[in-house]
């Protein structure tokens, strides 16, 4: 139909049918059209069946290593491998999926992706799940549209570490005085860090926490944790991050750093976090299945064994990568090895 002036010369029947057509198109996604589409090909179909049919579980992991959950990738005789607590968890989920798929093997296929791309990757069907020490229920708009399994790691949280003993002492004394005055813990932490440069990995729960609560500190955004350790300009006084990751780093890798503590060496924990597997919001069956697997692993003690194996045992991760690591797609390798930089955060 011509938009200029031919509308008046259309027959009544044509006009009515065109009107109905346009209305129905304007309402597409609703009502009967939606029902028909659902009948032909349910848009929230059985995601478990899809995985069984293709025999592959598409798993996303963080581009940035998060020891001991995701170690830096290693080149082995068999090719590139990535290992860590989360890869062992992925193996367990894939093994359970193989049983669910009536014995048809389901192979995990890893891709290293950035967290910011997660919504599109999951909702475009390129990933079935994402696992990399992701804290569930972080109040941030970047988390909208994502869904979480039950936790597989309960003892996460946010802590701070520093390389400078005087900073550690200042924080300890300030918090000790605040405790004697019975001041609020969060307020006293803000006072203890006032004027210091505090580094966080951009987009993480520590970033959200620092942006919300640490108004008196100078926030530094880093592309990765290694970038925060290496940064000289800007100089970093304190790094905030995931408790098990930072604890692992200061105990085994960066021993020149120390955690911020309260009296008698009690760790200064600022919030509690649980780590979960991330799926698309509409992956109901897959998420239900993962919940079942995690519950079984927890009940059987296997999950505790996995946690102990990666957090407490002494081991060389390249050896584990060679013997039990998972291969991953080449995409993301460059970003994986590029630790990025740190920069001052803008006004908050």
């Amino acid at each position: 139909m011509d938009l200029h002036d031919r509308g008046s010369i259309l027959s009544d029947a044509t006009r009515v049918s065109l009107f109905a057509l346009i209305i129905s198109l304007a309402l597409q996604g609703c009502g009967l059209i939606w029902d028909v589409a659902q009948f032909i090909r349910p848009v929230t179909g059985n995601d478990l069946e899809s995985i069984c049919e293709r025999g592959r579980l598409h798993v996303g992991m963080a581009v940035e290593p998060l020891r001991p959950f995701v170690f830096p990738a290693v080149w082995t005789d068999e090719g590139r491998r990535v290992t860590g607590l989360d890869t062992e968890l992925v193996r367990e989920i894939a093994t359970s999926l193989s049983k669910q798929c009536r014995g048809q093997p389901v192979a995990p296929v890893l891709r290293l992706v950035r967290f910011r791309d997660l919504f599109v990757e999951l909702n475009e069907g390129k990933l079935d799940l994402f696992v990399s020490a992701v804290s569930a229920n972080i109040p941030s708009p970047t988390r909208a549209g994502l869904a979480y399994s039950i936790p597989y790691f309960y003892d996460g949280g946010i802590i701070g570490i520093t390389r400078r003993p005087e900073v550690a002492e200042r924080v300890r004394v300030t918090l000790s005085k605040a405790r004697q005055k019975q001041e609020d813990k969060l307020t006293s932490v803000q006072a203890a860090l006032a004027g210091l440069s505090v580094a966080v990995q951009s987009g993480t729960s520590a970033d959200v926490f620092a942006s919300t609560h640490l108004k008196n500190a100078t926030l530094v955004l880093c592309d990765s944790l290694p970038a925060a350790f290496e940064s000289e300009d800007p100089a970093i006084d304190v790094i905030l991050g995931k408790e098990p990751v930072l604890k692992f780093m200061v105990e085994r890798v960066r021993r020149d750093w120390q955690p911020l503590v309260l009296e008698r060496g009690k760790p200064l924990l600022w919030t509690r976090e649980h780590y979960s597997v991330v799926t698309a919001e509409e992956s109901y069956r897959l998420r239900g299945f993962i919940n079942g697997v995690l519950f079984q692993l927890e009940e059987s003690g296997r999950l505790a064994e996995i946690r102990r194996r990666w957090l407490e045992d002494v081991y060389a991760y390249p050896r584990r990568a060679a013997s039990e690591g998972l291969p991953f797609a080449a995409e993301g390798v460059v970003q994986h090895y590029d630790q990025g930089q740190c920069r001052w955060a803008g006004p908050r």
Partner: protein
Amino acid sequence: MPHLLSRLWLFAITLFLLIPGYASGQEAFLEVFPIRPFSFDVAFRQQTYAPDDREIGIQAGITALRYGNLEVRTIYQFFSVHSQEFTSDQHSLYLNPRWNNFIDILDFPSRMPINRLIRHLLFGPLEDRAVPYVGLLAGGVLPGPGNSAPGGLIGGQIGVRFPVARGLSVDMTLQYAQYGVDFRGEAGQAQQWIFTTGVRF
């Protein structure tokens, strides 16, 4: 006209020379009828012939194949023009290979990636939730010139898809095409600009 056609071919060749290099690193899998294969759109077009005017039409599509960021769609497009002087129905069927997230080829320099800047400028708060794409169109139109065979259709498109959820996305496209068509007994070539918007599920 030949000048325009050669430019389109040049665009097509450039596109397909760029795509494999970008896609090969993905180790992607070929998917038949991937997620959200169906699309329905309203199309607003301005064209130069058969007739020379602006119209509203409808189109339906189905995505048959996807490989990483590449996908091939098949689109059926229907325009029906009714006036006192003439009635003209046009049916187009064409293949529409698309390269999704093409902007991400500009993922450098690491300090301030160009693709992030472009995404932020174009999509603002939805920068991480948009799938921009470019595509090519190649197919046929009925009635073709001489009304004996379909007229050839060729063109290109640029657009963006916003996934709303795993099962639904909103799509917007601007596309240019030229095609041979028979109109009131006379053969001719028409150029058209089309803006489409619709959903995929």
